[in-house]
């Protein structure tokens, strides 16, 4: 049975090239810094842009949490992201770990001496589950680039259903030659740092990151948001191209608003997907226009972090919440002149603004889309 109880996000953190905690990330973002850098060489690829975490810095920070050296880079990122949240929120018998990732430890396939099974996503989830002492089986959400947003929906839904008391949601993906060469083979990589919604945009810049949030039905006393509506609806159009009509995204947004039962004019801010491919950004503008939310302040954070795949949705929720709490919206980095056919209110500069209602959306390969509406509580 579904209990009619409100579900909250009351704690959040992230690990990115801009910093290994939320405070460092927010400081860098407000200053307009980006993790995207020129990479002369990466495996068989050369002269690309990517947002990459420095191994040395990561290892140094990880030592403060654990001196075990059996963890991969991605595992260290995930553990570092979740660690402060576990310190503040107790893992109980009915807590669950939900992991969002697209490729997990895929780079382990490069080492042909390792058993291939090491790269299984469930193996990765179990390692993190054991590290933090969860008593339940972990859930892996692997739904392409919407995974990070969908994982939050899954947590909210399963807590409302009474399956768990609370959920620790983590999301992470790392840069690998596997993913870089794949996007490159699609000719989907930007020749310069990505420029979402801009007329000059010509593709994605990839990045790596981990993010974590705590979700429960306990009414929080500090900074928190309620999850008031969500939807995850497929385009049924193409496995690798966005729908021209934005049907699935439009329906996901409508589904979230129906749950929340608020009027569209209440919405204060949209954190969109904005990958900076021609078709994705155009599709989003179409869907926002169809939903009549095209005048709401909107940004994409891909210009700061690149596209971090399975991490992106959760990372962008985490940063969106900082905008809500700090009452400051961030400029959509890389955007100068509109390159989408329907005008949308893309943020050119940081802007002070009180935000009560915040919408996060994402779309991905396989025709998937997601939307979640948040309401500021404290």
């Amino acid at each position: 049975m579904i209990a009619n109880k409100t579900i909250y996000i009351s704690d959040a953190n992230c690990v990115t090239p801009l910093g290994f905690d939320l405070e460092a990330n927010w400081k860098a973002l407000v200053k307009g810094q980006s993790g995207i850098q020129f990479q002369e060489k990466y495996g068989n690829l050369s002269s690309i842009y990517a947002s990459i975490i420095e191994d040395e810095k990561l290892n140094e920070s990880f030592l403060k949490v654990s001196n075990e050296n059996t963890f991969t880079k991605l595992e260290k990122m995930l553990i570092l992201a979740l660690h402060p949240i576990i310190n503040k929120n107790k893992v109980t018998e009915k807590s669950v770990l939900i992991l969002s990732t697209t490729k997990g430890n895929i780079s382990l396939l490069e080492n042909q001496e390792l058993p291939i099974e090491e790269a299984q996503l469930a193996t990765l989830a179990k390692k993190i589950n054991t590290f933090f002492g969860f008593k339940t089986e972990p859930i892996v959400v692997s739904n392409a680039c919407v995974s990070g947003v969908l994982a939050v929906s899954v947590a909210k839904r399963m807590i409302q259903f009474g399956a768990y008391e609370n959920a620790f949601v983590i999301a992470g993906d790392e840069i690998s030659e596997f993913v870089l060469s794949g996007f490159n083979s699609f000719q989907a990589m930007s020749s310069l740092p990505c420029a979402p919604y801009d007329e000059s945009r010509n593709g994605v810049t990839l990045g790596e990151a981990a993010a974590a949030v705590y979700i429960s039905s306990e009414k929080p006393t500090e900074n928190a948001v309620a999850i008031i509506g969500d939807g995850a609806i497929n385009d049924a159009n193409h496995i690798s191209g966005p729908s021209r009509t934005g049907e699935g995204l439009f329906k996901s947004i409508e589904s979230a608003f129906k749950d929340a039962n608020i009027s569209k004019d209440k919405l204060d801010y949209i954190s969109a997907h904005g990958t900076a491919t021609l078709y994705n950004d155009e599709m989003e503008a179409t869907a926002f226009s169809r939903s009549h939310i095209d005048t709401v302040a909107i940004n994409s954070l891909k210009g700061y972090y690149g596209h971090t795949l399975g991490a992106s949705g959760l990372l962008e929720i985490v940063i969106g919440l900082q905008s809500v709490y700090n009452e400051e919206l961030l400029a959509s980095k890389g955007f100068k002149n509109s390159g989408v056919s329907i005008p949308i209110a893309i943020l050119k500069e940081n802007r002070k603004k009180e935000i009560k209602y915040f919408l996060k959306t994402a779309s991905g390969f396989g025709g998937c889309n997601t939307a979640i509406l948040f309401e500021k509580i404290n």
Partner: protein
Amino acid sequence: MTTNYHISSYCKIENNTLQLNGATVLEMNDVLFPEFIKNASKTIGLEYPKFFKMDNLSKLAFLGAEAILKDNIDLENENDIALVFANKSSSLDTDVKYQDSISDSENYFPSPAVFVYTLPNICVGEISIKHQLKTENAFFVFDDFKPDFMSNYASYLLESGKTQKVLCGWVEYYKNEYKAFVYLVEKSGTIAHDKQNIQTLYNQ
């Protein structure tokens, strides 16, 4: 626990056998998966050229879904059937093939047609496209079949009004080892939608 929802039909594909609602529809000996699934597609009367472009995981999931949906889709109207799929090995079978195409710099041929299948939810997209299911969809990974979670998530979607029916599936494919168990959950039907029944049908 009582439930208002039922499993109205189910399909299993494993060991070169295709079963629909407990009855064997096709059984073959000594063939590998590609040969078997081609025959299975003929047996259920599939005419869909895109099927032959799919990777093995997508073929498996698609055919398991097709065996059920071909008799349950209303071609005149929108079908509100959500898709909730899961497996153990994600897209690892195709991942390994893709990795092989980039591991040797002398022989470096990354292909977008292979790369797109290195995500497990692509099979869900393939099913959505065939039946025009603009509905809730999700793909999960567990180290084995989890009837508890599958039943909880499907029940949530139904009881919350997010969907009218849910097609659930466990679709595992790795190196010629495979198992698909796909079932439709809706109001009508005779098998109660609960975790015991799901587990029993999965094991049968």
